[in-house]
């Protein structure tokens, strides 16, 4: 990238993808929990970045700009997937967790969370916003402030999504298979 000009070329972008492909793929895999989807998302990120590079003006550093595109690609895919699925309602989670007798068997949760299929099924029952925040924070290790910036959400909303998502995951992974959905 030309020093101080705030512009980047397609060659800069190619060089960035060459060096950071593992990190980009890692983020997509953590967000989507599926190797094929993660590979597709990386390619889509590259295509969107190539299409938009002429508009890159250096307001953010090139890596920040590309990772933001990558998060948007993952968010679009998560929202698409969520369209046909009913998210676990916040009201149900709140009511369960307010009940002092409510609990789960931690050994059951531990067994199930290690089962990738079960984990994905539970993640699919979160709202797209809760899922994005949970995965960016707990899987990709992003601080809440960065998530707030990238998703353009107030910090308090990010923390609220994170809390509800964690509670919902415990409920979903801890419930008996016979319990009503």
């Amino acid at each position: 990238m030309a020093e101080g000009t705030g512009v980047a070329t397609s060659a800069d972008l190619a060089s960035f993808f060459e060096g950071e492909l593992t990190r980009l793929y890692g983020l997509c895999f953590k967000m989507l929990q599926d190797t094929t989807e993660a590979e597709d998302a990386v390619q889509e990120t590259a295509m969107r970045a190539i299409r938009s590079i002429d508009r890159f003006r250096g307001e953010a550093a090139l890596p920040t700009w590309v990772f933001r595109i990558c998060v948007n690609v993952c968010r679009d895919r998560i929202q698409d997937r969520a369209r046909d699925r009913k998210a676990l309602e916040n009201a149900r989670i709140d009511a369960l967790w307010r009940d002092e007798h409510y609990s789960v068997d931690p050994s059951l949760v531990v067994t199930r969370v290690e089962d990738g299929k079960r984990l994905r099924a539970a993640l699919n029952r979160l709202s797209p916003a809760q899922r994005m925040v949970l995965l960016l924070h707990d899987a990709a290790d992003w601080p809440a402030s960065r998530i707030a910036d990238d998703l353009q959400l107030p910090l308090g909303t990010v923390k609220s999504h994170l809390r509800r998502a964690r509670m919902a995951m415990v409920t979903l992974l801890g419930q008996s298979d016979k319990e009503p959905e």
Partner: protein
Amino acid sequence: MSLTCGQARVMASDLLDDSLTEEDRIALLAHIETCASCPKLYRSMAAIYQQMHTTSPATPSQELRRQVRQLFRND
């Protein structure tokens, strides 16, 4: 300060992130010490966090690397 289960559970996520005030942390830990149901929920929450935090993705395939290079060649 004595917490109800409802109050303690709302704070559990912040305990996991170590973002509680010292006063809240002490109150929550005191509740967890004596409660029959909340520790199981907290242990479950911590186990899920641990699993998601430590799972590392496989490295990208050579095929993906080749396809991405191709995208830039076609540009």
